[in-house]
């Protein structure tokens, strides 16, 4: 249970990092000449997207471990990671939409490859949950979820390539995202923000995992008591 002990420390660390990120993004990094304050969402949108990728990658890795070792705990870990990834994926879509509205006045655009990719991934991982909920708990559900999680991670680069190729014949207009290169302070703010979000994702992952494990233990205890 050492994870549980260090959890408060990690949570405080994550909150601290988030606070630092907020400070850097809103007070330290310079405002963008063209887009003004709305450009600030870039400091959250992109790290959120990257964090989502990290979560999906973790989910697929845990899935492979499950298939390899057959140890039950990897199922819960993989599921929780995918769950976090989906939350951050949804946030990517939301922040992306807000940014599109702020930058170009429309709530959605097909020209942002990353946004479209996340839409496809969001559909894919929602199907992951539907699959999981339609199966009885047990080794079968664990295996099928694991296989699907691995497929998801393979889908990420393939879909990205597809979306880029699709641009040729779907939407010829392309909106440019950053006019200028990132200055040092901008880059620093970006990195702090990314670190903060990764820490946040990690803490959320641990909390959810702990919660689910406690749930499972409680259920087992209850059964043992009623059976005896």
């Amino acid at each position, binding site marked *: 249970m050492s994870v549980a002990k260090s959890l408060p420390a990690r949570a405080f660390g994550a909150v601290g990092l988030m606070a630092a990120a907020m400070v850097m993004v809103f007070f330290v990094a310079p405002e963008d000449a063209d887009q003004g304050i709305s450009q600030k969402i870039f400091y959250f949108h992109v790290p959120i997207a990257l964090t989502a990728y990290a979560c999906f990658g973790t989910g697929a890795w845990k899935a492979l471990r499950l*298939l390899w070792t057959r140890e039950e705990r990897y199922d819960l870990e993989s599921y929780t990671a995918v769950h976090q990834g989906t939350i951050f994926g949804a946030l990517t879509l939301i922040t992306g939409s807000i940014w599109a509205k702020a930058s170009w006045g429309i709530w959605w655009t097909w020209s942002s490859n990353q946004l479209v990719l996340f839409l*496809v*991934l969001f*559909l*894919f991982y*929602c*199907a992951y949950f*539907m*699959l999981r909920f*339609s*199966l009885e708990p*047990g*080794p*079968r559900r664990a*295996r*099928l979820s*694991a*296989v*699907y999680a*691995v*497929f998801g991670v*393979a*889908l990420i680069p*393939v*879909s990205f*390539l*597809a*979306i880029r*190729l*699709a641009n*040729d*014949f779907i939407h010829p207009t392309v909106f440019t995202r950053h006019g200028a290169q990132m200055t040092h302070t901008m880059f620093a703010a970006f990195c702090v923000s990314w670190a903060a979000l990764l820490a946040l994702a990690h803490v959320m992952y641990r909390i959810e995992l702990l919660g689910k494990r406690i749930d499972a233990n409680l259920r087992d205890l209850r059964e043992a008591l009623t059976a005896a």
Partner: protein
Amino acid sequence: MSTYAADVAALARKDLRLELRARDTLPAMLLFVLATLVVFHFALPAGTGHEPAYGLLWVALVFTALLGLGRAWVPERENAALDGLVLAPCDRSAIWLGKALATLTFLVAAEVVALPAFALFFAPLRGTALAGVALADIGICTVGSLVSAMAASSRTRELILPLLFLPLAIPLIVGGVGSSVSPHGGKYLLFLALYDGVFSILSWASFEYVVTE
């Protein structure tokens, strides 16, 4: 290796034989794809060129394939024949490959009717388009057979198959439409080949885990 090929051939032959006798899936797929093409005629507003039609062709093909994929594992579910196959000493991936080949045969058979019909109703299909259909078919049947087996284990199998399959089919649609309309059709054919390679290997390797505990 030759016993693996023989296993795959025996299993694919079994599926073809079953369909020849039952005659339910293939006629349904044929009728469905034709009906869909007619619906698309009415769905396209007047004055649209024939470019959008190529996109709709791919929608028709993917949904026709879904129809076939939904039925793919039904013979194994009846009488629990899948248990019988899983118990056999052959490689489990041979079960998947045999099924994928049989499904591919049905899909191609449906397209033999659908593609000329499309050319008749809408617009001609060039060489790269046909190559795109062939490559995408492989992707559809390899991934689709695996995903269909996953859906078959679930309580809500008819509902969940499209949900699991469609996100995976999006790259195939991009490749297919691109090979039909884009001036650089070859690029899209290469992409389809890449998809086929990656996902066929993934499906081949993971089928074992889908049918065993």
